[in-house]
């Protein structure tokens, strides 16, 4: 139905995305709502959608970036910000 040829990696797992998807939109479609350990004690997750709350910051190719603002790119390595705490 839709062209699902493009994908990036979320903690090593392949995530398909569509043109103009942000990382957050592609993760949402893949059913990933909990982005794992975040910048503070609360887990990273999508919240405001406009780059204001900083809750969705993940590591994009090694640099912290808001998943809600950053476009998905083929082959990109996107990860939880920090190793998961116990």
């Amino acid at each position, binding site marked *: 139905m839709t062209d699902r040829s493009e994908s990036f990696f979320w903690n090593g797992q392949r995530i398909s995305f569509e043109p*103009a998807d942000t990382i957050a939109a592609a993760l949402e479609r893949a059913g990933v709502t909990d982005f794992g350990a975040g910048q503070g004690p*609360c887990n990273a*997750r*999508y*919240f*405001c959608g406009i780059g204001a709350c900083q809750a969705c910051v993940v590591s994009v190719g090694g640099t912290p970036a808001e998943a*809600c603002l950053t476009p998905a790119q083929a082959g990109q390595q996107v990860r939880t910000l920090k190793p998961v705490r116990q």
Partner: protein
Amino acid sequence: MRSMDVLVIGGGPAGVAAAAEMARSGLKVTLCEQGGALGGAIHRQPGNPARAVPVPRAQSARWHKLSALLAKTDAEVLTFHAFIGLDATGAVLVEDRRQGRLLVLRVRALVLAVGGLERVVPRPGWHLPGVVTVGGLQVMMKVTGRGPAGSVLLAGSGPLLLAVAAQMTALGAPPLAILERSRQVLSPLRAAPLLLWPRYLAEAAGYMRRLMQAGVPWRLGSSVQTIRPTDDGRLETVIVDGAGAVSRIVVDKVALHDGLRSNSDGLPPAAHATDRNPHVVLAGDCREALGGVAAIADGRNAAQQVIARLTGAPPMSSASRRIVDTERRAQQALANIFDFGIPDLLKLPDETILCRCEGRTVGALRQMLATDDQPSPREIKLNGRIGMGSCQGRFCVEWAGAMLAQQTCSAQPAGAEFIGNRWPSRPVAIRSLLGPAVADAISSIPPNESD
């Protein structure tokens, strides 16, 4: 990047209107947007144009007109460029997020049109994954053209709940219910002033028709009090209705919204130019949250101020100012039927997260407030780490201020008393700060020659 007179920050209706108006007057204008496309919160464009979320016709017509106006000018548009701050030397710092570098720009005027914020009143569990703002849910729908998967509850107060519920319904994903905290929405006495703004009434009637056809309940007087994670990754909500009856319901997503507010904390204040600084003008929802129609008029106002200051041209017509005043009255009429008040936050359980970034709780602030020396807003921030996190207090200082006021029966301090307005006004990647700064756009350096 080229030499410029004016830098406009934010590609929503206010920023686009300001940029178009100034460029038409002959000023050299550059517009920076942190995201990938213009449109802002209300005119967010779909990734796939064939899959657009239905919006009122007048709303999309406004955006078409505005973006066509901008396209006819020579204003330069830079996407993925985020404003970081105005430094002590009067230079404007902008992060080029694609290249991961910092631009240090000298301009004659700076128009800040970074948009407003949604208010979300804290409650236990509001920090959990799966809890989003209503506008955040809408942004996701506008970008993907799809409704959210699973069962969704919309809760809080305001017209945006109706708009988003109707859009979800049109996409085949209606919410389970809209819980509207206000009981007064349909009170004829309170709603009467809205008759002066038939545009809002017609929009609301359209949304309500769609929701009634789909059988989506709009429960007045109801609110979500608590959200807890379930073992299978869903969310259990505790709902209190208008009669005080408590019920529980398990959902996949909870979308919260308690109105919109301005977003000027952390921004440099509006000011005339000095021997160092450019003129600074704020426009649109970041200055005062008055909605999409006002944002366009306010952008034009800002443009006229800048044009007058830079060219000495006499101030132009007051038509835009009148639109802003009219829209302010419309927002007041809306605020009269919805419930944007702050509930008694001192009643929240201790473990409720207050500052989402730093994970600081209501209990921690309560303890600080219980001492004999009342802490100042700055002390609450510096010692209590409330408002210290990366959102820079945008989602907690209103509530910390309200708790302070409720505890001490005093006036609520302004957000700026917590935050101040030093740069960076938003987090910036360290690599951009450490990398070679691209200085002075007036003698601009093309990207590949800078290193």
